[in-house]
């Protein structure tokens, strides 16, 4: 975190709509100048959090602080925060210039200075010469950039972005991710970025908060969240993960787990009689299926100890025989079997040895 204190500080923040808890009491600190992502599935509370920071909703309980000042009771127009909306919400009856200059007009900035700053803001998103157009005459990517320019023109302390790239096609999204990151570095403003796309969150953020069911499961750098998931949910939502638990975990590692093991950390080789090296887990199994992904091959292996693990083998790796039915040996450094807190609600942690032991996480992202 740069600077002293936090740009945003949320304390015991909760929001209920009638009997449903959209947000069940979260604490969060976002540092000055951070690119901070709120990552989670839809309905996990990330957008609610954003709207509470912007001031569009009033919290049921808890507080919102911006730069050390309690703003919980303040209206959106009393907070030094701007939002880039998911649908951009560009004013359709105003030109691009009028849209971008709106915050300055409201603050009664003199006309000449306003024109200058609008020009600079449009230049910063590479939209010079589009000022006289109306939003309807722009492409999706251009509208997105106008929304950014409009929100950045008067340099707010914090910029909130609500899935701003969701409406763009895949190629444009990739380009905008890079542009957005670069823009944030240039202006040095704190960005809070809401997304359900784990790849987006990992590649752009300084830190990530993973949301689930109105709570924060983990806050950390992208590497921490990916390499050291704190919960089974984080392990499954961020990337693809193997969950090794119960009796199979005991037979392979000596402890019941549960453990999260990333598919790319597992080495697949022909069965061998050599002794287990120190600090290594190994398990024999049979290949159940092989999925060709282009940049990699995904191999599903049924363990002799029970359960199934997914192994990711990159295209450059020396190939070992891995056809369905082949006997193989799986090995991984013990340090990459990340222990997770036992969750009594999960299946798989059932002590009954007959229960399914590993829960293959749903495939997400490039892996």
């Amino acid at each position, binding site marked *: 975190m740069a600077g002293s204190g936090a740009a945003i500080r949320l304390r015991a923040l909760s929001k209920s709509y009638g009997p449903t808890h959209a947000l069940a009491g979260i604490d969060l600190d976002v540092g000055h100048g951070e690119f901070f992502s709120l990552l989670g599935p839809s309905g996990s509370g990330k957008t609610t959090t954003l709207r509470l920071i912007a001031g*569009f909703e009033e919290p049921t309980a808890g507080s919102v602080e911006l730069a050390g000042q309690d703003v919980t009771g303040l209206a*959106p127009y009393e907070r030094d925060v*701007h*939002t880039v*909306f998911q649908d951009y919400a560009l004013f*359709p009856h105003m030109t691009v210039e009028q849209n971008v200059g*709106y*915050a300055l007009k409201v603050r009664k900035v003199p006309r000449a200075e306003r024109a200058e700053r609008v020009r600079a803001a449009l230049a910063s998103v590479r939209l010079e010469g589009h000022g006289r157009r109306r*939003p309807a005459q722009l492409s999706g990517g251009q509208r997105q950039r106008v929304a950014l320019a409009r929100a950045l023109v008067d340099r707010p302390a914090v910029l909130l972005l609500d899935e701003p790239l969701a409406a763009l096609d895949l190629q444009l999204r990739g380009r905008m991710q890079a542009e957005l990151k670069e823009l944030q570095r240039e202006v040095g403003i704190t960005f809070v970025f809401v997304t359900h796309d784990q790849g987006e969150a990992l590649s752009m953020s300084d830190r990530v908060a993973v949301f689930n069911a109105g709570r924060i499961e983990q806050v950390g750098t992208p590497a921490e969240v990916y390499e050291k998931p704190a919960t089974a949910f984080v392990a499954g939502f961020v990337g693809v993960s193997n969950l090794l638990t119960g009796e199979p975990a005991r037979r392979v590692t000596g402890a019941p787990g549960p453990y999260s093991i990333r598919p790319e950390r597992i080495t697949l080789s022909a069965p061998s009689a050599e002794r287990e090296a120190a600090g290594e887990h190994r398990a024999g199994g049979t290949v159940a299926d092989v999925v060709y992904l282009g940049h990699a091959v995904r191999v599903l292996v049924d363990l002799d100890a029970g359960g199934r693990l997914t192994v990711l083998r990159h295209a450059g790796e020396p190939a070992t025989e891995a056809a369905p039915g082949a006997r193989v040996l799986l090995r991984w450094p013990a340090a990459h079997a990340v222990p997770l807190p036992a969750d009594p609600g999960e299946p798989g942690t059932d002590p009954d040895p007959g229960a399914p032991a590993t829960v293959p996480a749903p495939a997400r992202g490039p892996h």
Partner: protein
Amino acid sequence: MRLSRTARILLRSAAALGLAVIYLPLLLVLVDSVNADRSFGWPPGGVTGRWWADAWHSAGARSALWVSVRAGLGATAVALVLGTLVAFAVQRYAFFGRQTLSFVVVLPIALPGVVTGIALNSAFRSVLPPLGLGFGLLTVIIGHATFCVVIVFNNVVARLRRVSGSYEEAAMDLGAGPFQAFRDVTWPLVRSAVAVGGLLAFALSFDEIVVTTFTAGAGVQTLPVWIFGNLARPQQAPVVNVVAAVLVLLSVIPVYAAQRLSGDTAAGGRI
């Protein structure tokens, strides 16, 4: 979809016939208003401006026109205020009974005018005298407002449904207070719908006759009521034709303007 030649001809004739049934009688009224032949036989017996001069000098027609205009403006004003406010309430806020309110507001347009008229008549009869009021222009305005509100309400609700609430949020997010956000963003986006609603409401009030009959005071005669009363009088018939012709021409204006207003904005690709 491709249609066979026969089907095309049949559909075109049906459409032409339908339009003819609607517009030929109207055309006849216009022709008869300058028909020199008093019995309005066919073919017309020459062109005359006499009936138009007569109508211009007819005190009854003039005062009826004035009453209609005032009733229309009054009812439209009431409808604009109430219809717009209710539309905003229903479309922008969640509250108990929202659906019911919306239903109750729209219902009067479907009620037969006779029912609305009788109901209002007996209500006024019991409410007004203790207040020292009687039937007059005000009662007509109230009567017309019951269905004019619906027109404005429907127009504004339809617009608000298309105008995302995030525009208002965006304006406030950028520093505008609630009033300024309304003035700069919400109002410009809904005003054409409000105007269209007002024009249609005025047109509806202007040619209303059933509710008017039950709510008008003794001295209050709107143009449609005056026409209806003078239809049976042979020596007034030419003047009635002229007034009818004027009404046709006058009602074209608000409807045309309303179409232009809503068409404009739709074609512009922006709300």
